[in-house]
């Protein structure tokens, strides 16, 4: 499903953010990407989402070699990967349901069908009744839920989230993790970047740990 082989990533002539990373995540896995701030967790997730390109090495996602993928084909890959970035990137001038409908508009779905699917996604993340509110009217936890609803609305095969529980209280963080767990249970491959050790201990069965100059796959495939 996701395979990194000797992947290096650097910006300009600077030092490598990621150096010689290699791992395989199979379909349906639930994986944490951990490590201290600035170690390259977000970069790794952006590489999987096709938002960045590797400097060296090969990345295969959902059967496609990202390092060989043309700029034209990249958007179509992104539709198979639901992305929740650290900053939720919600559109504050639109209602919650309009935010969730955006990926479906991009795919050209009929409005009625898109509306139905967006409503179902909102329902799934526990935001029923808040469809017409704008993100500014939602709490931090609800904004994260809304970002998740937008990421899963076009039924992606892979879900990646960058620090989805940062800035949330423990209770909200637990509920957000349950949402991810629910999607994982129905077969969505899930990767979550976090540095929240207790949370990971509670949920992880596999962790890709990034340390400066080191990469450790805990509970990975042999």
């Amino acid at each position, binding site marked *: 499903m996701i395979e990194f082989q000797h992947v290096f990533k650097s910006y300009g002539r600077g030092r490598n953010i990621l150096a010689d990373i290699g791992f395989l995540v199979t379909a349906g896995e639930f994986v944490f990407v951990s490590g201290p701030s600035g170690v390259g967790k977000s970069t790794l997730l952006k590489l999987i*989402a096709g*938002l960045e390109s590797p400097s060296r090495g090969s990345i295969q996602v959902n059967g496609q070699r990202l390092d060989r993928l043309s*700029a*034209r084909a990249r*958007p*179509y*890959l*992104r*539709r198979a990967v639901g*992305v929740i*970035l650290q900053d939720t*990137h*919600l*559109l504050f001038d639109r209602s919650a349901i309009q935010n969730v409908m*955006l*990926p479906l*508009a*991009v*795919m*050209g*779905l*009929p*409005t009625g069908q898109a509306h139905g699917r967006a409503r179902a996604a909102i329902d799934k993340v526990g935001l029923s009744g808040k469809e017409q509110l704008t993100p500014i009217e939602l709490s931090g936890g609800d904004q994260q839920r809304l970002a998740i609803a*937008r*990421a899963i609305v*076009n039924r992606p095969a892979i879900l990646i989230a960058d620090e989805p529980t940062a800035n949330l209280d423990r209770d909200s963080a637990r509920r957000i993790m349950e949402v991810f767990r629910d999607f994982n249970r129905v077969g969505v491959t899930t990767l979550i970047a976090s540095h929240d050790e207790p949370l990971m201990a509670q949920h992880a069965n596999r962790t890709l740990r990034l340390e400066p100059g080191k990469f450790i796959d805990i509970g990975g495939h042999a």
Partner: protein
Amino acid sequence: MKSWLRQHRYALRITLRRLALQPFSSLANLLVIALALALPLLGSAILVSVEPVAKQVSVTPELTLFLAADAPDGAAERIAARIRGEYAGQTAGVRVVGRDDALADLRSNPAWEQALAVLPGNPLPDAVVVTMTDAEGLAARADDLAAAWRKWDHVDRVQLDSDWVQRLEALLRFGRIGLFLLAASVAVVVLATVFNTVRLQALSQREEIAVARLVGATESFVRRPFLYLGTLTCSIAALGAIAIAGLALLPLNRALASLARSYDAEFSLHLPHAGILALAVVGAALLGALSARWSVTRNTRF
């Protein structure tokens, strides 16, 4: 195909929403472009109205050879015969107007009667009027012939009677070139205005563009609303320009009508016909789309 149409409908809806969200700035842009487009439209209205008048007047030049006052009797007939003989292919008619006939003709005009009464004798010369055949290079040929005949014995002066028509034609040619330059300048103004409008929109929609890309939008999807913005702005502005030019012609025509009446004539300015105006709207829309495409390609690289 349906999905493609839906994406276009979505882009159009987004464009109208963005326009409606900034009503004053959208209106100001429309006005600037409409006023700029109205200028060449008014110019073309003047040209298309004046051109038929120029065409109605025959441009076939008549050359009049005025003989010297001391020319011997029969000189005019001999010159006329020579022209008929040597320039038969280039002349449609040659006639002699004797000095006595010319004086009698003038005397028949009451305005000249008193002035001619005080003159001791007939001051008018014999004249030969030559009508040229209408063919390629007429104007240049008439000039050459006039220059050649001026050198003939007993010929005092050769006058090209349709000079003013040719001057009017030259003026219209000048007007057409001026109009083309004006239209080109206006096109640059429109390009710059749309480019800047789209640039500002792209900057203010930075977050929306980033999110759209994040959820799998193609570059065409990202650019489409901006192309609609350029196209719509310019087509609406072009329609506005037609309305502005039409309104501007009303007082102009009123003033022109009283001037024309004083010459016992009828003349009014009118816009080019509907086909040309439709072409102008399509041209403006294409210009807007082109400028928007250029701007959005440059300003959404982030």
